[in-house]
């Protein structure tokens, strides 16, 4: 079982370009999340989805959008990347009965 798969693993991107980070899960979890990890700030929630067809804003949503067309996929899009979006991005899904989050291995994004 793969769990959470993220792609790409890393990417260098010019400012102003559009970028989509992909996230796929095979655990059939309803809730999924996107976090960014920055030194000294921990993991901050960008967007979330409680079930397919619904999304919500987290703590730091500006400059990002998400969609949840089906249960398995939860892509994160940067419409016009800026250097402050340089970070490591983690996708996660939540097991309903325990509340435990399962994370992907992360996507390291550098915006120049």
């Amino acid at each position, binding site marked *: 079982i793969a769990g959470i798969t993220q792609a790409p693993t890393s990417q260098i991107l010019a400012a102003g370009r559009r970028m989509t980070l992909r996230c796929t899960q095979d655990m059939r979890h309803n809730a999924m999340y996107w976090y960014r990890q920055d030194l000294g700030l921990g*993991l901050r*929630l960008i967007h*979330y989805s409680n079930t397919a067809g619904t999304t919500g804003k987290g703590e730091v949503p500006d400059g990002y959008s998400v969609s949840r067309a089906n249960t398995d996929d939860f892509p994160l899009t940067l419409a016009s990347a800026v250097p402050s979006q340089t970070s490591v991005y983690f996708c996660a899904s939540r097991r309903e009965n325990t509340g435990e*989050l399962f994370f992907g*291995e992360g996507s390291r994004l550098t915006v120049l």
Partner: protein
Amino acid sequence: DQQVKQNSPSLSVQEGRISILNCDYTNSMFDYFLWYKKYPAEGPTFLISISSIKDKNEDGRFTVFLNKSAKHLSLHIVPSQPGDSAVYFCAASALGYGNKLVFGAGTILRVKS
């Protein structure tokens, strides 16, 4: 304003000794707390959790203590092993907050052999 705070950016412990990682929270609505462990170039992995109806939960070498009146929790690792060296994140959630996890900034634990 951070709702979950880990005030120690790093901690260094000798192998075999106890590691104590601390976490404070400000939101009294939080009712479920978790610790995650993260190795470099990997995603965080779940370690242990505790519900607000308990004050202690133990799993092998790992014990989490919750002091609701002080809004404080701690993770004890006994005995510490070199493989425990990682970043540890404290996280909290609340049913009234949509069960979204709020994470602390993390503490880097180094266990010296």
